[in-house]
């Protein structure tokens, strides 16, 4: 379970962060160096904020991957640590209780929407304000 979620998250965040860091205009780094900024300081105060939109979108994508693959994993594997949503879905299917399956599907949709609204919406709003890309 954990493996699937970690793998879902890891690569998309890595790729997004890498792209974000690469796409920071070199002039920022040079300007910071000219103004006497050191390595760690540049990383934290220049590169990280400049790459943040990419990183956040990577995190969002990673969240979506993790959520989907966790559902799939829970359908396939029942493990001892507990009975999750995927297992409810699976047993609904086994018992041909379609009301259960559709109900859990709706719950999954609602959780996805809520996670987006609660976790990512405020961060994205902050980023839009910060970068002046407010719609």
């Amino acid at each position: 379970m954990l493996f699937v979620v970690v793998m879902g998250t890891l690569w998309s965040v890595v790729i997004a962060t890498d792209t974000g860091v690469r796409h920071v205009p070199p002039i920022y780094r040079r300007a910071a160096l000219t103004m006497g900024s050191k390595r760690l300081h540049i990383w934290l105060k220049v590169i990280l904020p400049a790459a943040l939109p990419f990183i956040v979108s990577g995190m969002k994508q990673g969240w979506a991957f993790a959520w989907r693959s966790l559902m799939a994993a829970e359908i396939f594997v029942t493990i001892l640590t507990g009975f999750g949503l995927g297992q409810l879905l699976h047993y609904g299917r086994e018992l041909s209780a379609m009301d259960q399956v559709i109900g859990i599907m709706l719950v999954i949709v609602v959780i996805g929407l809520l996670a987006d609204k609660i976790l990512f919406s405020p961060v994205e709003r902050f980023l839009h304000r910060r970068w002046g890309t407010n719609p």
Partner: protein
Amino acid sequence: MKRFLLAVLFFAVLIALWEWAFLAKIWSPVLLPAPQQVAEYLKTVVTDGTLFQATVITMRRLLIGYVIGLVGAGCLSRFCGSAKRRRPCSLLW
């Protein structure tokens, strides 16, 4: 506000279509239950706490994995950035 109303409208249309498909008996009721049945199921599951427990377990798995993934990605992308940057003009490294 307008967006919210549009979303509500969309879901209302979706549920109406679902109801219609159920009433028209395109699929057997075993395969496509009515919205009311699903609502009833959800109500029982919410009241007896099964849903809540399952959600907590799933979310715990998800959050633990996600945090591990984020931390790992932070470390890994640090290597990505430095390993591939071979340009001589790199002032950082």
